[in-house]
C-alpha cells in the first residue's frame, strides 16, 4: 500500500510538470500585456516599456520559464504583478473561503444526492424516480450562474432570509460564516447532486439485481436494511469515483460561484488574475488546482480498499 501511495505521489510530478509548461506557454501566447494593464489607459508607450522591463517580461520566454521553475522548486511562487504580494501569501488569504465552499458543497451534495439516487433506484419507474431524474437533467442543463441569480432573487431579495453576497471568516462567528455559505453551496451543489444522484441510481439498480441482494431479501431482511447494508456498500465504488472526478467540476463551479456571490476565494483570484494577465498568480493557482485534483483522486483510489476488500494495491 505504502509503495503504491509513493508511486502515485511520484506520478503527480510529470502531471504537474505538463500543467506547468502548458499554463506558462498558454498565458504568454494569449493576447494581453500585464505591463500595459498596470500602466493604465493614459500611459505612454515608454511608460509601458519601463514596466515591462521592471517585470522581467523583456526576457526570452525560455529564460522566464527557467527562472520561474527554479523558484517554484524552492517553494517560491514569486510576487504578483498586481497585488505586490507574494503569491503564496495571496493564496493563503484566499484558501479558507474556497475550502469552506468546496467542503460545504461536497457535504451537501453527498447528503442529498446519495439518498435521492437510492430512493430513485428503489422506486424505479415511479413518479419519484422520474422526478429525481428530471431534476438531474435540469441540474446538468442550467448554468451555475443562473441558479445563483435565481436563489439570490428569491432568498436574499424577496424573502431577505440570507445575504446576497460576501464571506465571513469562521473565526469571526459561526452563524455569519454559515449564513454566507448557504446560497453559494446550494448553487454549486445542484450540478453535483445531479451527477451523483444519476450515478447512485444506476449503480444501486445494478446491485439490486445481483444474487446476494436476492439472498438477503430471502433471509427476510427489510428493504431498508437490504439497501443500506447490502446494496449501498457494494454500489459505493462508482459513486466515490464520480465524486473524485467531479472535483474538476467543482473547481470550475467555484470560479463562477465565487464571482456571483462576491466571495474572495481562489476562484475569484483566478478570474482577476487571468483578466489582468497576472502570470505568477495564474500559474500558481492552476498548479495548486492540478495538485489538489491529483491528490483527491489518489484519496478516492485509497478509499476503494475500505469500501471493497477485494481491491488491493
Amino acid at each position: 500500500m505504502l509503495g503504491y501511495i509513493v508511486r502515485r505521489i511520484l506520478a503527480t510530478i510529470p502531471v504537474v510538470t505538463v500543467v506547468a509548461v502548458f499554463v506558462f506557454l498558454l498565458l504568454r501566447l494569449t493576447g494581453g500585456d500585464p505591463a500595459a494593464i498596470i500602466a493604465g489607459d493614459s500611459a505612454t508607450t515608454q511608460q509601458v516599456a519601463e514596466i515591462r522591463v521592471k517585470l522581467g517580461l523583456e526576457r526570452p520566454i525560455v529564460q522566464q520559464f527557467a527562472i520561474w521553475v527554479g523558484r517554484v522548486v524552492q517553494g517560491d511562487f514569486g510576487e504578483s504583478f498586481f497585488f505586490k504580494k507574494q503569491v503564496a501569501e495571496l493564496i493563503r488569504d484566499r484558501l479558507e473561503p474556497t475550502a469552506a465552499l468546496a467542503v460545504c458543497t461536497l457535504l451537501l451534495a453527498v447528503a442529498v444526492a446519495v439518498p435521492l439516487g437510492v430512493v430513485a433506484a428503489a422506486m424505479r419507474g415511479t413518479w419519484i424516480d422520474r422526478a429525481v431524474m428530471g431534476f438531474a437533467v435540469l441540474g446538468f442543463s442550467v448554468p451555475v450562474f443562473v441558479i445563483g441569480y435565481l436563489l439570490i432573487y428569491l432568498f436574499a431579495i424577496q424573502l431577505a432570509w440570507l445575504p446576497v453576497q460576501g464571506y465571513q471568516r469562521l473565526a469571526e462567528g459561526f452563524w455569519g460564516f454559515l449564513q454566507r455559505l448557504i446560497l453559494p453551496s446550494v448553487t454549486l451543489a445542484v450540478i453535483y447532486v445531479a451527477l451523483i444522484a444519476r450515478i447512485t441510481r444506476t449503480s444501486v439498480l445494478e446491485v439490486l439485481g445481483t444474487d446476494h441482494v436476492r439472498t438477503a431479501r430471502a433471509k427476510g431482511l427489510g428493504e431498508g436494511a437490504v439497501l443500506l447494508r447490502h446494496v449501498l456498500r457494494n454500489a459505493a465504488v462508482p459513486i466515490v469515483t464520480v465524486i473524485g472526478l467531479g472535483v474538476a467540476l467543482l473547481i470550475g463551479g467555484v470560479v463562477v460561484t465565487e464571482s456571483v456571490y462576491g466571495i474572495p476565494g481562489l476562484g475569484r483570484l483566478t478570474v482577476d488574475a487571468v483578466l489582468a494577465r497576472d502570470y505568477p498568480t495564474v500559474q500558481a493557482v492552476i498548479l495548486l488546482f492540478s495538485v489538489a485534483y491529483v491528490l483527491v483522486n489518489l484519496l478516492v483510489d485509497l478509499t476503494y480498499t475500505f469500501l471493497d476488500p477485494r481491491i488491493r494495491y
Partner: protein
Amino acid sequence: MKFPRRCAAACVAVSVMWFPTGAPQPASAETVLKVVMHSDLKIVDPIWTTAYIVRNHGYMVYDTLFATDAKGEIKPQMVGKYDVSADKLTYTMTLRDGLVWHDGKPVTAEDCVASIKRWAQKDTMGQKMMSFVKDLVVVDAKTPSGSSWEQTGLVLPALGKPSSNVPFMMPKRVADTPASVQISDFTGSGPFVFKRDEWKPGDKTVYVKFAQYRPRSEAASGLAGGKVVKVDRVEWRAISDHQTAINALLAAEIDYLETPPHDLLPVLKKDANISLVTGNPLGNQYAFRFNALAKPFDNAKIRQAVMIAFNQKDFLEAVIGDPAYYKVCKALFPCGSPNESFKGMEGFLDSNFGKAKALLKEAGYDGTPIVLMHSTDLSVLANLAPVAKNLMEKAGFKVDMQSMDWQTLVARRAKKDPPTQGGWHAFLTSWTAADILNPVSAGFINASCDTAMFGWPCDKEMESLRDQYARETNPAKLKQIAEAVQVRETQYPTHIWLGQWYGPAAMRKNVTGLILAPATVFWGIEKTGR
C-alpha cells in the same frame, strides 16, 4: 516657484479667520459607508499608474496644492495663498496652516517639491510644465530665494489637474521613491487614512476619517473647497459581478454603487430606496482612434472621410440608449467645459456617405481592409465597433473587425507592426472628460510622432498649437488656440470624438451629499440610519 517652509505667526492669525468653525464637524456615531467602485484596488500608487481607481484612491488619501472646482476653475487647496510675479515668471505659494501627514508630522514645502518632481516624471502635463521650469526651490523664513520660469499658463492647470495623473502631495521620504518604482509607504495628508492592515485586494479596501485633517472653510465645489468628512469609515467592497452588486445595493448590503451598467438602470429606478445621481457632470467622451502609421490611415484625407461618414447619435444609441445619459456634442473639448466650441465642424460627423465616398476616391483608397479592434468585455465599449464598421462600410471602406477582450486590445494597440502582422488600424475607447479639457492634457491630440500615444500621429502644426497653448496665460487667447486645434483636427484627424455619455452612480436614499466632480470622492457624503 517658491514654497516657504511654514507660515509665520501672521499666517496663523489669518488661518484662524479662514477656519471660523474650528475643527471639522464630527461624524455621527460610527458610520460606515460601504461602496462598490468600478474596479478593485490592486495598485496603490497614483503616480505609478493612470488607472482611475488608483486616482480615486489618491483623492481619499492625499491632498493637492490646487484643485479644479465645479466650474472648471483652478482653486488653491493645500495652498493658502499664492502670488504670481508681475513678469509671470515666479509663482510663490504658501501652504495652509495646520496641514499634517497621517503620522502627525507637518507638511512642508520640501515634501511638496519632491512630490511635484516625482509626479512630473510620469505625467504628460507635468512633463510639459517642467519643460518651462528652471528651478523648484524651498524657501523659508531663513533662506529666501527666487526661481525663474519661462512664461507659461500651465502651472495652475497642471498642479490642479483633476484626473490621472493627479499631482498628489506625499511626504518627501515617499516622494523620493523613483517614479519607476511603486511606493510602499502610504502616508498622505488627505481626509482619509488608508488602512493598509485591512486592505485585501479582491475583497475590500478600508479608509477611516483622518481626525486631524483641516478642511478649507469654503464649501466643497468639484474637487476644490472644504473636504469635510461626515462618515467614520469607508469600505470599498470588491464585487466584480454587476448583477450581484446591484442585488447587494437593493438588499442594503452596500450603500453606493459607482458605475451600474446602463442596461440595469431600470431595475434600480423601480426601487423607491435607490437614487441615481450623475456625479461627474461633464461625463465621458467616446473616441475612435486612428493608427496614423498604418496605410491607408497615414493619409489624412482618408481619416477625414471616416469623420465625414460617422455620426455620434448612432454610437450613443447603440451603447447608452437612454438619451438622459448621453449628449451629442460635436465639440472636440467636452460640452460644458471652457474650451467647448463648434468651430470648423460643419460637414463633419453628419454621416454624409456621398461626400465620404468622393473623398476616398480623391485620396486614392485602394480597398485595403481596415483592421478595427473590437473589445467585447466592457459593456460601455462593446457595441461601438460594430456601429463603426457599419458606417465605414456604407462610406466604401472594407472593414476587418477583430473581436478581443480589452486587455488584449490594450496590448495590441502598443504595436507598430503592420495591421496584417498583428498591428491595427483603429479602435474605440472612452475618456473621462476631465482628462481632455485642453490640448495639452488630451492625450489623443498629442501629435509628436514617436512620443505620441499609440496611433502615433505626427503633425508639426498641431504640436505648434499645443505649444502655444502651453505658453499662453490669457483665457480668451487660450480658447482661440483650442478652437484652432479643433479646426486642425478636422484637417489632420488624430481621432474622432463620438459624443458624451454619463454614468450615474446609484445610492441608497439614506446616503446624501455626493460631491459632483470628475473623480468619485467621499468627503461631503452623509449616511443616516441603516
